[in-house]
């Protein structure tokens, strides 16, 4: 008895769902699954966007959807045009009133950056939300495809995604099989912080044929000491920062000549923005990092030759 009720319920749900699918087809609705497994369904392509996350802004400009963006979060500074977009939130604070008043078709949000509560709150306000949480370098291509589908810019997206894919493949072919060099990636000097294997920077290091010496630590941005860097003895030290002022921190390493990287003068500065954001621009940062690692390989080779 019970079983039949259940069955019939299930069956009615099935009928209901399939009717939705059929209706979707009929109205040519757009349906995309976001990174948290939620269906984002739009009746027509979104042309009024609020975007919370600098990497999402960059990606939208990349596919030609920059003009659709009505509101953006703090630190959306690339490309130049993004700086002029009105700000509707920073870190984990979101100006919900302003977002509602902009009446967006869709909000793109960086899930872990702004928090699940904020995503839920936006949805409870009746706003369609795409929560993004790209992890790997491949995910950036999937992100571009989703953005393109939701904004209806399939042609320019296909070009951007193909470009990204071919550049990623190129870097992979050129660098990932080269001789492994160990890398210490320094996020910050005081307190000294690095990134573990879960971070996308680690993926870039591996793409370039490097190996992050602190990949196995459990925290995503662990604190380490100079001494643990000495113990790990990396071949290359990459110090990242936001401007040239941070580059002065490189002098700090000169005292520790027992580290291979310092001894062989393989301590480099790299601008963090292009390396830590999940956007197509990450491959520019990757190119730069790959070249630095390549430089350290040839330095090692030269050294061996002179020793002979």
């Amino acid at each position, binding site marked *: 008895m019970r079983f039949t009720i259940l069955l019939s319920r299930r069956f009615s749900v099935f009928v209901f769902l399939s009717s939705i699918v059929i209706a979707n087809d009929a109205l040519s609705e757009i349906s995309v699954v976001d990174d948290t497994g939620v269906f984002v369904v739009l009746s027509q392509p979104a042309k009024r966007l609020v975007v919370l996350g600098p990497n999402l802004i960059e990606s939208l400009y990349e596919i030609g959807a920059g003009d659709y963006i009505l509101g953006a979060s703090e630190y959306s500074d690339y490309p130049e045009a993004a700086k002029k977009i009105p700000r509707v939130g920073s870190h984990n604070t979101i100006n919900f009133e302003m977002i509602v008043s902009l009446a967006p078709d869709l909000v793109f949000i960086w899930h872990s950056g702004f928090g699940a509560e904020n995503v839920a709150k936006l949805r409870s306000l009746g706003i369609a939300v795409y929560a993004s949480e790209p992890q790997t370098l491949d995910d950036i291509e999937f992100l571009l495809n989703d953005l393109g589908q939701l904004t209806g810019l399939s042609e320019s997206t296909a070009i951007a995604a193909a470009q990204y894919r071919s550049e990623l493949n190129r870097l992979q072919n050129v660098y990932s099989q080269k001789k492994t060099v160990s890398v210490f990636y320094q996020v910050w000097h005081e307190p000294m912080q690095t990134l573990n294997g879960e971070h996308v920077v680690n993926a870039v290091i591996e793409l370039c044929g490097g190996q992050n010496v602190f990949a196995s630590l459990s925290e995503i941005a662990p604190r380490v000491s100079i001494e643990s860097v000495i113990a790990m003895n990396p071949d290359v030290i990459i110090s990242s920062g936001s401007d040239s002022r941070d580059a002065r921190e490189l002098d700090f390493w000169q005292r*520790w000549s027992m580290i291979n990287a310092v001894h062989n003068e393989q301590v480099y500065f790299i601008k963090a923005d292009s390396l830590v954001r999940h956007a197509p621009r990450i491959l520019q940062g990757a190119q730069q990092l790959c070249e630095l690692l390549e430089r350290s390989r040839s330095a090692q080779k030269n050294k061996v030759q002179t020793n002979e």
Partner: protein
Amino acid sequence: MVPFLNNLSLKKRLLQRYANANQGFGWLGWLLVLLTPFVFLLGLGIGPVAIDAQQLLYLLPSLLNDALLSPLGLGNAAVHDPALSSLHIIIMDIRLPRTLLAWLVGAGLAISGAAMQGLFRNPLADPSIIGVTSGASLGASIAVVVIANRIGVGGAEQWGGLSILVMGAFIGGLLAVLIVYRLSTASSDGVTSNSTSVATMLLVGIAITALAGAGNSLLAYIADNNTMRSMSLWNMGGLDAANVLRVKLAGSIIIPAIFLLMCFSRQLDAMLLGESEAKHLGVDVQRVKWALIVIVAIAVASSVALAGVIGFVGLVVPHMLRMVIGPSHRRLLPYSALAGGLMLVMADIVARVIVSPAEMPVGVITAILGAPLFIFLLRQRRDYGMY
């Protein structure tokens, strides 16, 4: 907790104990003195780069030479073996400054805690609980913003930058102590009462901590990204930034502060009996109070400016010592300094070993040790909540 009762027979016993405590330095003091070099060797020997006991002993003469004689321009022993010479550098430039800074900060915080508990006549007075460290950290954060604007972000590693940092922390810490002291000693009719109200003291501490937290968040909005990240150090607390400059600055402030505080042991003992009793014993209570407040603020502020917020050392150490040696400050103050130094050196060893090669903020370790004791003390004396 004998010292904080006003019962007359207890006062007699207190005086008796005070008389007994005056005989010599005591076995525990000597034990702490003997343990110090041993714990220092542990601090120098343990870290991510493995150094065995034999290497450490072999390096010891040249280390002592470098640490003690070279600053005076005497002696110059070079280590020739390249493997050992890099160990020598690791110890001299990383572990020794770190161990010394840990000792100085621990000693300064513990003796400050002991002196404050005497001054407030209140066993829960700890620089971190009553908001002095948060006041100092807000002062330091403001100083960081000033330094970043005037000298540049890296400026905090020069004498000038560090001095501004210490000054900022001192002003913040001093303001916090003054506010706590004024509010918790003033009774409702406006007359300064004879003892402090624990509830008021803790509440004022909470208020100051919250205010300083809000101030720090506000600064985070004003400051640029880099300055903000520099400021986060004060909220985490850490000795990994230790270097020779910081040790010199900490030493030249905290060591005099320790000796100055020790000079007040007789007055603090007299004040345990009550302020009017202390006046009858010839203590200039008002002057002593002011002097203690300023010295404690200096010691706490410099430790916050140079090593970040490290809580509970000033609570745990004096309490454990009182359980063994009683309340007399003649012994309590120097013992607190010695034991506080040892405790923080050991806590820092744990902090760098427990998640090696990553680092744990040492404030986490001291809080894990200290917070349960704080709760235990609150439970043991329910009347702390009754004032």
